[in-house]
C-alpha cells in the first residue's frame, strides 16, 4: 500500500510540474534551432470549428510552441543520436566522388536528348561559353577524376539527408531525386528570350553540394544533378547564354565552395560562379583580390534543423564572405511583407540600406548577410560605367552572386522568384536592363520555375496589389507545387515519395523560414 502512495505522490508532483511549465511559462515563438517562426494560434471561426481545422490548429500550435522547445528538441536529438551504432565507425572510409557528368549518363542518349519532348529542334547540350567565346573543350575543363579519400564515415538520416564525416567536420547534404527533367524551366527561360529580344538572357543552374561531396556508397541513393542540368541546357534556345557551372564547381571542389551545415553554397562557390557569368557576359571578370574577406564564426546553418542530427550542431564552420574594395555602391530595397503562407501581403516604399548585413559570430542566419534575405527587390547602383545593367532572377542561392558584380555592371537588380508584384516587361524597360540572368539551384530548376512566367503578364504597376486568393494561386500560379512548394529552395522527393522541402532564408523580419513537408 505504502509503495503505491509513494509512487502516486512523486508522479503527481512531477506531472504537476510539467503541467505548470508547459501551460504557464512563456511559449516559444521562434525556433533558433529550426530557424523559423513557430505556428501561430489559430483564429476562431465557426467554419474552422466545423471543418476541424480550429481544433487541429490548437493542437499543433500547442505542441509547436512548447516552452523550452529548443532545449527539448536538442534533448530529443541527442537521444535519437544514440540509436546509431558508433563502434568501428572511425575506421570506415568514405570516398568522395566528385560529380562530373557521369560518363555512362553522358553517352546514354536518353539522358541528354529531350525526354518525352516532341520538339524536333532540340539542340545538343552546349557545354561551352556563349558568343563565340569558344572555351576549351569540356574534357579539359574538368580535372581528372580524383577521389578524395577521407577517414570519415557517412550515414543517411531517416528523412534522406546524407551526413558525411563526424563532428567537428560533419557535412550534411540533401539527396537529389530529380530525373533528367528540367525542360519546363528551359521553356521559361526561352520565353524570356523571345520576349526580350534586345536583352541578353543567361541561364545559370546551380548544382548543390550532393553533386560534389556525395559519399561513394551513397551514390545509389541520389541521382546525378548533371542529368537534369544537361537536359535543361539542351532545351535552351541557342541564343540563350549558358552559364554552365558543373565543370567550374568541379574544378574548385577541394575548396569550401559549399557550406557544410547549410543547404546553400558558400560565398566562395558563388564567387567562382560569378566569375564564370562575367566571362560569358563579357564584362570585367572579378578577382578575389578585389574583395575584403569578412567572417562570421561558428555558423551552423539550416541542415541542423532539417536533419535533426546532433553531429551537425557540433560542426560549426566559418561563414566567409567577400565585400568589394574599390567600388562605391548604394543599395535600394523594396521590401515585401509576407504572411505565414509566404503570400505577399504588403509592399514598402523603396528605401536605401546596407547590401551586406554582418551577423555576429554564432548566428545561424549568416546566409542572410546578402541583402538580409529574400522578400524584397534590391537595386544596387554602382560606380561602374559601362552601360550594362543586370537583373538577377534568383532563389536564395542567387543571393550570394550580386556582391561580386558591382565592378562589372552599372546597376545590379535582384528579384526573387517568389516575391515580385510588378510587371516584368515594365520593370525591364523602366530600368534599362541589358542582361537578365536566371540563377536558381537545380532543385528549383527541376521544379519548373513557372512563376517567372507570371511576372511577364501580371499587372503589377509597382504599387502594391493584393495577390489573388490562395485558391486561384494554387490553380494557376504555382503549378509546380508537386515538386517544389512555392517557397522552396530545395525540395527533395525522398525515397518514400514524400516531399522534403527546405525553404530558403527569408527577410530579416521573418528571419528565414524552413518548412518540412511530409505528406
Amino acid at each position, binding site marked *: 500500500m*505504502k509503495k503505491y502512495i509513494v509512487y*502516486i505522490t512523486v508522479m503527481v508532483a512531477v*506531472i504537476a510540474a510539467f503541467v505548470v511549465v*508547459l501551460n504557464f511559462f512563456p511559449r516559444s515563438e521562434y525556433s533558433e534551432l529550426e530557424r523559423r517562426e513557430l505556428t501561430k494560434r489559430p483564429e476562431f471561426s465557426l467554419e474552422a470549428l466545423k471543418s476541424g481545422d480550429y*481544433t487541429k490548429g*490548437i493542437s499543433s500550435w500547442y505542441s509547436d510552441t512548447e516552452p523550452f522547445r529548443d532545449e527539448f*528538441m536538442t534533448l530529443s536529438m541527442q537521444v535519437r543520436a544514440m540509436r546509431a551504432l558508433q563502434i568501428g565507425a572511425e575506421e570506415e572510409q568514405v570516398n568522395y566522388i566528385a560529380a562530373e557528368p557521369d560518363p555512362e549518363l553522358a553517352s546514354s542518349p536518353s539522358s541528354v536528348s529531350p525526354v518525352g519532348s516532341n520538339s524536333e529542334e532540340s539542340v545538343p547540350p552546349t557545354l561551352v561559353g556563349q558568343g563565340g567565346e569558344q572555351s576549351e573543350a569540356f574534357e579539359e575543363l574538368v580535372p581528372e577524376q580524383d577521389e578524395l579519400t577521407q577517414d570519415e564515415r557517412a550515414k543517411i538520416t531517416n528523412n534522406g539527408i546524407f551526413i558525411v564525416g563526424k563532428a567537428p567536420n560533419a557535412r550534411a547534404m540533401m539527396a537529389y531525386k530529380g530525373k533528367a527533367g528540367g525542360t519546363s524551366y528551359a521553356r521559361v527561360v526561352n520565353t524570356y528570350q523571345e520576349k526580350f529580344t534586345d536583352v541578353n538572357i543567361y541561364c545559370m543552374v546551380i548544382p548543390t553540394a550532393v553533386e560534389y561531396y556525395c559519399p561513394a556508397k*551513397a551514390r545509389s*541513393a541520389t541521382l546525378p544533378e548533371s542529368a537534369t542540368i544537361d537536359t535543361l541546357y539542351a532545351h535552351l534556345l541557342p541564343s540563350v547564354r549558358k552559364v554552365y557551372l558543373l565543370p567550374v564547381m568541379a574544378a574548385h571542389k577541394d575548396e569550401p565552395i559549399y557550406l557544410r551545415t547549410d543547404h546553400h553554397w558558400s560565398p566562395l562557390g558563388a564567387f567562382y560562379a560569378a566569375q564564370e557569368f562575367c566571362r560569358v557576359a563579357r564584362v570585367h571578370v572579378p578577382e578575389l583580390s578585389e574583395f575584403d574577406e569578412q567572417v562570421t564564426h561558428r555558423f551552423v546553418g539550416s541542415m541542423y534543423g532539417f536533419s535533426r542530427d546532433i553531429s551537425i550542431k557540433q560542426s560549426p564552420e566559418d561563414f566567409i564572405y567577400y565585400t568589394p574594395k574599390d567600388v562605391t555602391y548604394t543599395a535600394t530595397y523594396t521590401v515585401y511583407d509576407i504572411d505565414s503562407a509566404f503570400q505577399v501581403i504588403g509592399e514598402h516604399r523603396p528605401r536605401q540600406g546596407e547590401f551586406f548585413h554582418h551577423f555576429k559570430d554564432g548566428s545561424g542566419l549568416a546566409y542572410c548577410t546578402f541583402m538580409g534575405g529574400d522578400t524584397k527587390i534590391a537595386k544596387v547602383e554602382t560606380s561602374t560605367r559601362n552601360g550594362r545593367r543586370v537583373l538577377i532572377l534568383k532563389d536564395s542561392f542567387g543571393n550570394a552572386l550580386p556582391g561580386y558584380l558591382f565592378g562589372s555592371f552599372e546597376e545590379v537588380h535582384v528579384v526573387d522568384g517568389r516575391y515580385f508584384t510588378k510587371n516584368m516587361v515594365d520593370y525591364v524597360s523602366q530600368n534599362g536592363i541589358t542582361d537578365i540572368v536566371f540563377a536558381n539551384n537545380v532543385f528549383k530548376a527541376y521544379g519548373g520555375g513557372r512563376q517567372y512566367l507570371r511576372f511577364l503578364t501580371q499587372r503589377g504597376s509597382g504599387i502594391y496589389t493584393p495577390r489573388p486568393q490562395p485558391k486561384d494561386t494554387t490553380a494557376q500560379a504555382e503549378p509546380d507545387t508537386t515538386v517544389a512548394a512555392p517557397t522552396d529552395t530545395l525540395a527533395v522527393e525522398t525515397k518514400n515519395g514524400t516531399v522534403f522541402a527546405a525553404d530558403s532564408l527569408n527577410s530579416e523580419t521573418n528571419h528565414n523560414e524552413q518548412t518540412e513537408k511530409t505528406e
Partner: protein
Amino acid sequence: MVFSDLFFLFVFLPAVAICYLLAAWLDKSVLSKATSPESGLRTSFTARNSVLVVFSLIFYAWGEPVYVFLMLACVFLTYLSGRIIGAGGKYRKPGLVFGLICNIGILSIFKYASMLVQTLNHFGLDVPDPKISLPIGISFYVFQSISYLVDIYRGDSPVQKHFLRLLLYISMFPQLIAGPIVRYGRVAEELSNRHVSAQDMAEGMQRFLLGLGKKVILANQFSELATQFMGGFSESTATTAGAWIGVIGFSLQIYFDFSGYSDMAIGIGRCLGFHFNENFNHPYICDSITDFWRRWHISLCSFFRDYVYIPMGGNRRHQVLNICVVWFLTGLWHGADWTFAMWGLYFAAVVLFEKYVYLKIKPHIWKPFQHIYALMIIIIGRVLFYFDDLPTVGQFYRTLFGGAPSSDFVAEAAVLNNFWLWVVGIVCCLPLIDWSKQLLGKITGVDTAANNSITTAFQIVASIAVLVLSVALLVGATNNAFIYTRF
C-alpha cells in the same frame, strides 16, 4: 485528439482530473442519499459520469466535430433498442434485430459504401462515389454497441436504463477511438459503482506511461523506417534488404503503436475505476498463428469468436466455413479494401493449415523454428496490411524474395544508424516486466521491504524518464497519428 499529443497530455488530461475530483466531491457531499436503511448510503456517480461524458464528447469532437452527432445518434438508437429488448416477451427479438440493423447499417454506409461503389464500378457499372470520409473510431463504437445489445438479449447483463451510463460506456474517451473493444458485461457494474484504490491509481499511471513510451519512443521511430522503405514504394529503387527492413519496421511499429494505445486506454480506465479487458499478450513471442491470434487484439478476436464464430456453429458444424467467414470479416473490419479481405483470408488459410497439419506435427519441431515460422507468416502478412493496391503488393513480394538488388547504402544505414532502436524494439517484444518481477522476487522474496523499495524506485525513475523523453520527442513530431484509429 490522440493520446500522444502534448495538448491531450498536459491540458486535456489535467482538466479531466481536476473536474473529476470536483465531481467526486459533489457526488459524495451533495448528490448521495440514503436509499434504504439496510443498504446504507448509496454513492451517486451522476456528476462523475457527466464529467466523463462531456470530456469524452469534447475528445471525439476535437477530431470529428460533425461526426460526433453520428456517434450520439448511434448510441441513442442502441439505447432505444435496448429498452425494447428490455420490454421482454415478443419484443426481444425485434428489438435486437432493429438495433443490429441500425448499427451495422451505420457502419456499412460510413465505412463500406465507397468500397462497394468502387467494386461495382470496377465491374462496369457506373455508380457515383458518395465520397464519405470515415468517422474516427466508428468500427470500435459500433462493435461496443453490438456487444451491448447481444449481451442484454442473451440475458448476460441487465438492460441499461440510464441513457447517460450507456453513453458513457460507448463514448468513454480512453477506449473510444481505438479500443480495446470493451464488453458491456465487463464494465456494466462499474458504470454505476466503482472504486479507485491506491493500487488502481498507481498501476493505472504506470500503464499509461508504459503505453506512451511504446508509442512515442518506439512506434514513432519505427514508423520512420517503415515509411522510408514502404511509403511510396517503387520497385526500381528498392532492394531486398530494404524491403525486409521496411516490413519488419512496420511490424514493430504497428505492435508498439496499437498495444501502446491499449495500454494507455487501460491505464486511464484504471485511474477512473474501470477495469477494461486486456488487448495484447506479447504477441510476437507466439509459436504458431493460432497462438498469435490469442495474443493480438484479443478484444476483437474474442468479439468475433463470441458473436460470429460460435453462433455460426463453431467447431460443431461446417467449421471450415465458419473460420473463413470470421477471418474474412476480421480482415474487412480493418479497412474497406479488398487487400484487407485478402489479409483476413490469408490468415484463414494459415489457421486451417495449422489446424489440420502444423499443430499435429508441432511437438516434433525444434522450438526456435516454431517461432521463426510464426514470425515469418506474420511479417509476410503485414505487406497486405500496409498497401492498398494489389500491383504494389505483388512488386513488394517480388522485392522481398530476391527480385531486386540485395542491399544498398540506404538499407545498411537504416540498420547501423538505428541499431540500438532495433535492439530495444525487439527486446521490448518480450515479456520483460514479468521476467524482471519474477527475478527480483527470487532474489529479494515477494512483497518484502527490499522488493517494494527497489520496484518503486525503478518505477519512478522509468516513469519520469518516459515522460521527459516523450515530451521531448513530441515537439514538432509530424507522424504521430495512431494507426488503429483509422479502422
